[in-house]
């Protein structure tokens, strides 16, 4: 069966999104064993560390009445899956069958940056040809690993970790300029101000303390932000990627 949903632009605020977590594998239906979850999580963390592509898996017992693609896209957008500068995030959403909501749904949502590597028709084939059958049998793990076996190599070719590192250097340079702007300009003003008002000693001291206090703060926030994302081992956090509704969905 094919479902073509023409959904009018929603202004409603009742848009539901599963609770954000700090993991890449989120099984809210209990369809995967702890061991399977850990294996998938390690695989996706390693993929994130080596390519900066972020793939998130969410298994949910409900869609709160919304379409699977819409929920998957919102997860991508609101969790910020993928790196901000590349929008290289991907969300695989599976809605498990329950007594209250008997339909089984699966959706792949692509971030703006991976739409080229994974066009909608390609996502649809991955769902139809590799996921629907094992999902119908309740074998979620096989459905996910088969999908990842195709998706990961494709995304690896889209762009390299080197591009990410290059952009990181650029943003560090911009950060330095911002620091100079924020700290340098007030310092110059303070310098000339104090030259004109040599008797205003108290103010001088206050200014200097403020300036020296803010410098390490800028530096500190910049470096801690980077290291938390690339600390090796566990997943460091979502990168703020953006989603535009690309991808495909299906039923099982």
């Amino acid at each position, binding site marked *: *069966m*094919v*479902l*073509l*949903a*023409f*959904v*009018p*632009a*929603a*202004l409603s605020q009742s848009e539901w999104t599963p609770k954000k977590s700090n993991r890449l594998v989120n099984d809210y239906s209990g369809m995967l064993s702890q061991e399977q979850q850990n294996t998938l999580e390690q695989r996706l963390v390693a993929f994130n560390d080596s390519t900066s592509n972020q793939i998130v898996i969410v298994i949910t017992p409900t869609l709160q009445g919304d*379409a699977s*693609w*819409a929920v998957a*896209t919102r997860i991508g957008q609101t969790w910020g899956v993928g790196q901000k500068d590349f929008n290289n995030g991907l969300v695989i959403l599976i809605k498990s069958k329950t007594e209250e909501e008997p339909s089984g749904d699966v959706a792949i949502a692509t971030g703006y940056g991976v739409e080229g590597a994974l*066009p*909608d*028709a390609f*996502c*649809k*084939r991955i769902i*139809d040809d590799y996921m629907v059958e094992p999902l119908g049998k309740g074998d979620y793990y096989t459905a996910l690993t088969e999908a990842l076996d195709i998706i990961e190599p494709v995304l690896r070719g889209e762009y390299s970790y080197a591009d990410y590192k290059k952009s990181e250097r650029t943003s560090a340079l911009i950060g330095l300029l911002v620091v100079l702007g924020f700290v340098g300009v007030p310092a110059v003003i303070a310098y000339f101000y104090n030259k004109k008002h040599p008797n205003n000693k108290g103010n001088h001291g206050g200014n200097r303390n403020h300036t020296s206090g803010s410098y390490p703060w800028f530096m500190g926030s910049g470096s801690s932000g980077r290291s938390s994302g690339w600390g090796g081992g566990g997943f460091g956090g979502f990168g703020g990627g953006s*989603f*535009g*509704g*690309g*991808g*495909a*969905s299906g039923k099982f």
Partner: protein
Amino acid sequence: MKKSTITILAVVGVLAIIVLWGISVNNKLVTLEENVSKAWSQVENAYKRRMDLIPQLVNTVQGAANYEKSVLTEVTNARAGVQQTQVDPSQLSEEQIAAYQKAQDNLTKALANTIKVTVERYPELTATQGFRDLQAQLEGTENRITTERGKFNEAVQAYNTKLRRFPASIIAGMLGFEKKGYFTAPEEAAEPVDVKFDF
């Protein structure tokens, strides 16, 4: 220091604060307007993507063995209607957005009908991988349109709110910032319209 000097200094100080505040309101509005423009270009991209897919659909349907011209009349007419609707991206007024949306929603309906009829009449065609791929692309494009329209509405909402809220509204009026239009959900469809079909 003389009393008059203090008065002059105070007046100059207050004026400076007002000017600085005005500049900050202006800059904030410019940023928000820029976000609206960006969101608008994404909306246009999504719609353009759909326009580009229609010739593919037309070609595919024309390839059916027992093809009749009437199947494609609605969609080609609706496509022509869209091409006649122009929107000035620097304005994005309520009237322009409403007219644009009307033409595009018309095309949405026409496309849904065409696909429905195609599936009914040409089952052998719709079973092919080529048609399934095309269908997936059309579906994804509708999803993109919905997503980008939602993001555009959010950007417009942020801009309009800033524009109309006192006291920024005084400055906004003086600087010539104008309210922008939203996409609205069609009246007859408060619920999502699902066009379902089997093949």
